[in-house]
């Protein structure tokens, strides 16, 4: 359908007025971030998967611009351009169109997103609980009554990883792969294998690097084989990586039991308020215990706000789809005769504003509601 009829438009506006009233009454400042955004933040932050679905074009000066595929990054840009000190607490909400090429699920290419972003909140657990509460209140105000809430907690996983004894560069690589379960498992296995790791076409060279000077070897190899230097990487960079690979072989392999612990944690799922017994069965260290206490604190804050966590579902692996989240993540699915339909999601993303140029760290938590989908569910 090329557009909405008057009745459809009015129904969506009516629903969204109800959503926004909840956010505004809670003291969130209703802003209108730009629709047209510089493309690089989205593309460089998200990689090819989002790029493939983003409408990108070139302005007359040659700059790459895009139609926003989401409103979180535009709200962050708004904040950075308006706040004198980005770490000062600000609470924003918004309502407006976002644009994505349809994926294989045939979602619409333009849709209206409602959401809120809370920057610099002093009490992180209370803010997370409040964002979840406001999301649920908004959905209920619009008429949604049957839904399920799932959440995850990347803070627990990060803490467990920090508590696990291994070289820091291994941790970085594992964290980078958190989002990709299969790659994560393979990497973990390779750390356990130690010297017995699978050999590749460059293993013979790594053998030689282990014995000598990496840079000299790389230079001799390039000169000897008359290889042109293309691809924009320096020899020093290439040599340093070969040295790391040689060093990896000298490291004590990761104990299988430690790897099993990480995998066991990631497999945890169940009713959110009773899940602590599963957390307790995981052998973590001091940081993990702090993260467990944070989790308990968050549940407490939810109850304080009148939410019932016994109705919520926790999954340790939840959030693997959403790359910029750093802590609490959640999703709300409407129950429909055709199965669950995701209508809202959100979470904590403490690194995004720094990545976008903030000179100081800015804690951030937010949510987004897919209003067209919600309307379709309620229709």
């Amino acid at each position, binding site marked *: 359908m090329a557009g909405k009829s008057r009745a459809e438009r009015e129904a969506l506006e009516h629903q969204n007025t109800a959503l926004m009233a909840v956010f505004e009454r809670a003291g969130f400042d209703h802003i209108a971030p730009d629709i047209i955004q510089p493309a690089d933040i989205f*593309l*460089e932050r998200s*990689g*090819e*998967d989002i*790029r*493939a679905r983003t409408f990108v074009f070139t302005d007359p000066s040659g700059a790459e611009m895009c139609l926003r595929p989401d409103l979180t990054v535009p709200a962050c840009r708004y904040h950075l351009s308006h706040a004198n000190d980005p770490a000062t607490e600000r609470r924003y909400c918004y309502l407006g169109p976002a644009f994505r090429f349809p994926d*294989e699920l045939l979602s619409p290419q333009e849709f209206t997103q409602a959401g809120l972003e809370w920057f610099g909140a002093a009490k992180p657990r209370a803010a997370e609980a409040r964002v979840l509460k406001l999301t649920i209140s908004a959905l209920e105000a619009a008429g949604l009554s049957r839904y399920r809430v799932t959440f995850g907690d990347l803070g627990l996983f990060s803490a467990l990883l920090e508590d696990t004894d291994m070289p820091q560069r291994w941790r970085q*690589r594992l964290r*980078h*792969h958190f*989002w*990709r379960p*299969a*790659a994560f498992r*393979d*990497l973990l296995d390779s750390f356990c294998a130690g010297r017995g790791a699978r050999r*590749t*076409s*460059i*293993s013979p*060279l790594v053998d030689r690097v282990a014995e000598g000077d990496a840079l000299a070897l*790389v230079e001799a*190899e*390039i000169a000897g*084989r008359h*290889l*042109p*230097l*293309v*691809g*924009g*990487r320096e020899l020093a*960079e*290439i*040599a340093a*990586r*070969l040295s790391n*690979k040689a060093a990896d072989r000298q490291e004590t392999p990761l104990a299988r039991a430690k790897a099993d612990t990480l995998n066991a944690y990631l497999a945890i799922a169940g009713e959110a308020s009773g899940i602590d017994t599963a957390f307790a069965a995981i052998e973590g260290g001091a940081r993990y215990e702090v993260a467990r206490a944070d989790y308990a604190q968050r549940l407490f804050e939810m109850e304080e706000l009148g939410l019932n966590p016994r109705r919520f579902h926790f999954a340790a692996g939840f959030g693997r789809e959403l*790359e910029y989240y750093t802590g609490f993540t959640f999703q709300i699915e409407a129950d429909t005769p055709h199965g669950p339909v995701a209508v809202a999601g959100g979470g904590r993303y403490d690194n995004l504003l720094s990545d976008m140029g903030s000179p100081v760290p800015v804690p951030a938590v937010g949510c987004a509601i897919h209003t067209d989908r919600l309307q379709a569910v309620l229709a």
Partner: protein
Amino acid sequence: MTTITLAIPSKGRLMEATAELLAKAGFTIDRLGAERGYRGLLKGLDGVEIAFLSASEIAQNLRDGKVDLGVTGQDLLNEKIPPDDPHVELLVRLGFGPADVVVAVPECWLDVATMADLDEIAESFYERHGRRLRVATKYHNLTRRFFAEKGVTGYRIVESLGATEGAPAAGIAEIIVDITTTGSTLAANHLKILDDGVILKSCAVLAGRRAALADPRVVRLRELLSGIT
């Protein structure tokens, strides 16, 4: 009974091999109209029309429902039509026109052997140079699907419609995804295929629309061509 349409490549090696294959199955192709008409009839099986199309358009024509069957490269089919497409299905791998779609990187990247290496490099490349690694290719969808499956995300695709293997030397991209038969073009350009960088072992295929699969003419063609290859 209405006719069904079989699309075959309009020129080149694929067209010749397809004509030979149909001849082996006992059919000949009657081109209609002028010498180089783009329509024809399959003699030996009533009610089958031939559409001569460029190999790269056949998948799209299948997807759009403009033809019922098509012979094309598996690389082109998989690029245009996702594996779980509800309307179009690969029916027979015909065997001719073998070629691999591969991920290749500069040979001077002595520290890179696998897709996992590429993923690590992507991170440090971004930190050092402030931009993403670029992959030159005409296979956007195959590349995206394969890289996602291998857990590599920090890259960008740049369009390449010809001489893809020259992109790294020209400074247009660092990596390529391209089709290769012997690998000699890659070697001549000082590029190497990653150990786990074969995206697809392609050859010519017969594909068809699911809605047409029960048609007796389609059943017969499918049987005959499966028997030969």
